[in-house]
């Protein structure tokens, strides 16, 4: 057997994988045993000396260097016992270093996530200016938020622990559904909460109706909802524009590819003349005829003046623009005054002959049937069931002149009506506004409130009514002032607005009527009556009320209101009278926006007609013959897209969607977008609207 060569002791395997290294290794004298697994020095003797007679012989293995120079001790112990303090190997040190780094990182994170620091630590960046105040908890606009953590203003996760976050990862979509709701806690005043997350705030079913494909909002979003944060990305710093949006974002739903405004945008159609103007005005005839006759210059900006923001052109007031010519006509039309109560001429004898005794009837109003009942009086009478039946029998728009004295049915109706008239006069004379309120409430179905009645009868004095009662002999209503039986509990809690008597009430004993003569344009009593009637629901189903409204709102009716203020149908069978021209500054926010100001700065556009060209051939008069404002002929030629496209290119005035379009629209506008008014769909259910 051969023994290993002499240099083998120094040629053992290097073992960088071991965690411990002999402390003597750096001296080049690593002991053959090496540290134990636990890193202790075994202090192992290199050999076990053998006994040869009385001498101890070194027995060191050739692998460990062969017989040593020192030799065994006299007691037979090995002289080569190494003791060291084992050191860790480089790998072992690295392992511990890495563990330490990891623990350090975990420690830092634990500190950062501890209660006091947490919100500040996990915030990914400052909020935009508009939201910065949210972080001041004590001044939070929303009282329910006060006292929550800063992040909790918007994030429900902020109320959970780290473990809670991990839990929310499991059900990811349930993670932060509440965030948009939290946005709405502050933004509900401007955006309806129900459809806040729906595209354009338009109810999905409506949206589906108006999109070409009928697909509705992008199918990417299963619930057809977009969180606020989808577009409004926060934590990007104080100066970050929260509402900036690129065209491509629009195109994630609007999938028809859009490269440039001039080539891809659809034509405007009739825009902006989508409905007739609220104020009936014929630009063509005023320019060509009326202004010319008066030798006035017809300039757009005389009547259309810029608002404070210079984005909208407002219509000048009546006084400034129209009064010069129209005041006189209005005054003439009401010179005789409007009848409020007027006794018809009754053929008492004929009634008597037919067996109807109507009791005492003023002499001056006795004769052949004659006279019309004033519309307001009809309304008050309609509250009386007998009178209502009688008026229905006679026809909603009847005139006593047309009563056939030989027709017993008509005579019976007249008799009932006469009785009702007498009790009406007595009732009003006795209780005044209370009676009017009760009667109107009954006639129009919805409850008519005290202030409204005050407006309807502003300036009508007690004495006038008392005197009117005197028309009938035998009616004693006393001389007390109104109201006699209004209890304090019936009075509305809020402060009653004062309606100054604008016009004058007077008693006409010749015609046996109470009349009202309006003071001037925009008389409050007259407009109050018109408003009240227009707002009555389901007018169509109430011929009597409808007739009344028609009579009062006829263009030729005293005051000539409807000759300029167009009447149109709105929701729930109601009508409206457009007292004011459209004011975009107060109007609902729509999909389209436009600012006149910057356009008018351009010399070639400063003359409005370059965009708004009057179409002289249009028959504008016909436009107001119907109740539907969208059935009309515009007297302006539509604005063509090409006009805009001249400047609105990517390089010049810009052609991004947001240049002309709003994303969020107001609910009224949303409802309009649903298509009602264009005859394309039924108006939404009243309750649905009311719920919003």
């Amino acid at each position, binding site marked *: 057997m051969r023994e290993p060569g002499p240099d083998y002791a120094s040629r053992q*395997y*290097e073992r960088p*994988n*071991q965690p411990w290294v002999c402390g003597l290794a750096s001296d080049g004298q690593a002991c053959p045993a*090496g540290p134990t697994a636990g890193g202790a020095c075994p202090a192992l003797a290199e050999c*076990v000396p053998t006994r040869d007679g009385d001498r101890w012989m070194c027995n060191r*293995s050739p692998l460990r260097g062969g017989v040593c120079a020192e030799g065994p001790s006299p007691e037979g112990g090995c002289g080569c016992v190494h003791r060291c303090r084992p050191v860790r190997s480089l790998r072992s040190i690295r392992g511990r270093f890495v563990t330490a780094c990891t623990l350090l990182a975990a420690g830092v994170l634990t500190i950062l996530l501890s209660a006091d620091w947490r919100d500040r630590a996990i915030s990914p960046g400052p909020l935009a200016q508009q939201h910065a105040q949210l972080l001041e908890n004590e001044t939070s606009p929303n009282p329910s938020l006060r006292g929550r953590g800063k992040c909790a203003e918007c994030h429900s996760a902020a109320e959970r622990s780290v473990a809670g976050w991990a839990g929310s990862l499991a059900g990811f979509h349930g993670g932060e559904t509440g965030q948009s709701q939290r946005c709405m806690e502050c933004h509900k005043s401007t955006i309806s909460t129900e459809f806040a997350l729906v595209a354009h705030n338009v109810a999905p079913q409506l949206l589906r109706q108006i999109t070409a494909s009928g697909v509705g909002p992008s199918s990417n979003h299963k619930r057809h909802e977009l969180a606020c944060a989808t577009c409004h990305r926060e934590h990007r710093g104080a100066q970050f524009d929260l509402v900036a949006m690129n065209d491509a974002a629009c195109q994630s739903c609007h999938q028809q590819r859009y490269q440039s405004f001039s080539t891809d945008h659809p034509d405007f159609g009739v825009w902006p003349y989508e409905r007739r103007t609220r104020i009936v005005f014929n630009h063509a005839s005023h320019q060509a005829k009326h202004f010319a006759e008066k030798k006035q210059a017809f300039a757009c900006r005389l009547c259309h003046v810029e608002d404070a923001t210079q984005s909208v052109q407002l219509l000048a007031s009546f006084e400034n623009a129209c009064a010069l010519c129209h005041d006189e006509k209005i005054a003439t039309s009401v010179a005789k005054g409007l009848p409020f109560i007027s006794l018809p001429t009754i053929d008492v004898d004929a009634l008597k002959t037919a067996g109807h005794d109507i009791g005492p009837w003023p002499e001056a109003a006795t004769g052949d049937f004659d006279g019309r009942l004033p519309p307001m009086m009809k309304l008050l009478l309609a509250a009386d069931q007998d009178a209502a039946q009688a008026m229905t029998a006679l026809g909603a728009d009847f005139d006593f002149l047309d009563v056939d004295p030989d027709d017993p049915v008509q005579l019976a109706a007249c008799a009932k009506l006469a009785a009702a008239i007498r009790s009406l006069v007595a009732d009003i004379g006795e209780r005044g506004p209370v009676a009017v309120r009760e009667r109107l409430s009954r006639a129009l179905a919805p409850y008519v409130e005290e202030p409204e009645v005050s407006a309807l009868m502003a300036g009508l004095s007690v004495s006038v009514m008392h005197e009117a009662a005197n028309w009938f002999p035998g009616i004693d209503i006393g001389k007390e002032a109104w109201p006699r039986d209004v209890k304090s509990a019936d009075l509305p809690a809020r402060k009653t607005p004062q309606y100054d008597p604008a016009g004058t009430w007077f008693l006409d004993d010749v015609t046996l009527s109470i009349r009202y003569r309006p003071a001037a344009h925009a008389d409050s009593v007259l407009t109050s009556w018109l408003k009240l009637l227009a707002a009555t629901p389901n007018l169509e189903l109430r011929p009597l009320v409808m007739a009344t409204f028609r009579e009062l709102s006829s263009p030729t009716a005293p005051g000539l209101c409807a000759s300029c203020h167009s009447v149109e149908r709105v929701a729930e069978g109601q009508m409206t009278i457009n007292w004011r021209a459209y004011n975009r500054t107060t109007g609902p926010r729509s999909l389209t926006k436009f600012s006149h100001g910057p356009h008018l700065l351009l010399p070639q556009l400063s003359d409005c007609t370059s965009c708004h060209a009057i179409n002289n051939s249009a028959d504008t008069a016909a436009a107001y013959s119907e109740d539907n404002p969208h059935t009309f002929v515009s007297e302006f030629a539509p604005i063509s897209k090409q006009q805009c496209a001249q400047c609105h290119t990517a390089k010049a005035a810009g052609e991004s969607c947001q240049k002309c379009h709003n994303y969020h629209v107001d609910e009224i506008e949303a409802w309009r977008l649903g298509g009602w008014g264009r005859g394309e769909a039924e108006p939404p259910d009243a309750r649905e609207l009311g719920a919003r």
Partner: protein
Amino acid sequence: MSELEIAVPRPRRWNEPFGEMAEADVDALLRIEPFRSIDANAFPPSLPLRGILLGDTRIGRYQAGDLIVREGDYGHSAFLVLAGTVRVVLERLDAKLLGREEPPRRSWRQAIAQLWSNAKLPEVRASAGANDPANDRVGTRDESGTARVFLQDVPRLLEKTGSVQLGVGEIFGELAALTRTPRTATVIADGRATLLEIRWQGLRDIMRRSPAIREHVEQLYRENSLRVHLRETPLLYDLPDNIIEQVALATEFESYGNFDWYSDFGPNHARDATEQIAAEPLIAEEGDRPTGLLLIRSGFARMSQRHGHGHRTLAYLGKGQVFGFSELIESHATGEGVPWRHSLRAVGYVDVLRIPTEVVRELIIPNCGLWIADCGLRMQDTQQSAIRNPKSEISASDARLLDFLADHRFLNGTQTMLINLDRCTRCDDCVRACAATHDNNPRFIRQGPKHDNLMVANACMHCVDPVCMIGCPTGAIARDANTGTVRINDRTCIGCSTCANSCPYEAIRMVEIREPGGAFLVDEATQQPILKATKCDFCAAQLTGPACQNACPHDALVRVDMANLTGLSQWLGRKAG
């Protein structure tokens, strides 16, 4: 005696006998030839003949068609026919037919288990290792009598292929056993046969002390080797059998160099390069008249050319390669004598077959006839392409590299570990991967001879000629029968250090082993630590192939077969950076 050491009996040869030989079997053997005539007194008391027969032999019983020796396997034993006959199949058989299988590998579960099951301390031995490459018993039947590999329809098979029958008393398998080369032929049992299988260590020890047997075996070796080799030489493929026979008769078998060349080689015997070349036995000298065509039978020969005052190495010729053919062809074509253009020297020990010039001229060239060009082409394929192909003209740096490889005899390696030092970051990932796959023990040292930026690391190269195996008394170090990977059977290793001392490359390391508790094992008799030889096993059982190469992140480490110099120069040509 400390508690950190545990005394156990030192493992000895025959602790793990080759087979289950009974004393009666040995008695029976000693009554028959050739054992009867062996002088038992020539054996020392420590190594008695009986002991050899008891511990290094086994008796195998075979049925007709049983495979005894499989061509291509790395055998470690010779066979003596005791009864019946066997057939040596002369032609190559299909590997599948021979039942060759992929060596077993660990399962994923076993591989992952290494993560926690590896020992914490170095060189812990839980129990004796199980795999014993030397004990691959191809043909013997197991306990249930089922053949391990069985050939179907032997008669038909033998009809188609040439075969030789061997009878009682004949020896076969000695070639592979003694030269550490793969089996050259397949042997199957002809009918019922009883064979004595002798572990080559036993055969060697018997040969050493019994001149008769030595002569007999050497005679066999020469005959078989010559024929086998001539048949395997591409140049002679097409020659008719009778011509081959004539060539064989004329061919001379020559051996150069010392069979024990490794004993005076290695780092401890550092020599000047010129001196070393000069010391190498000369086989053929540049400028001499060609005496014949030289075929390398085994070992390596250095082909060099004079350059200045020294010799520049051009190539290495290994087994199966031919020297001097171009000169002979040229002189045949021109009619003029063309001298040898290169010198040939034995690196270590070389067996050479010399086919005399006249035989080449008269028997080989005429019979090649029209195919001379073809022969030339074949030669290009097999060997001298580096010289004959002008495109791959050896550059100066390549020549230096060849010198380096030859000086250190690295050409012996089939899995030499090379490290590109321009890319190696010394991260030790290779060493750690090696340790992780070997029970927490590295099996090589990341250091070694350096040439420019190339370092040959101190890892087992799995030599073509593994001289480490020569002295092993127990056969613990042996080649895997299938792959040729040199492995040490830890169970049978007795820690004698012979292999470690024999290895010229210092790739084998003796280690002191511990029991799982961490205590060193010492011999109870001498109090000396118990050693085991350890080295790279090329991760034979691992799923990954060599872990070192697999673990190198920087393309710095590669295991290269030195026989494939093209592959090596390609790898080197990748450049650093």
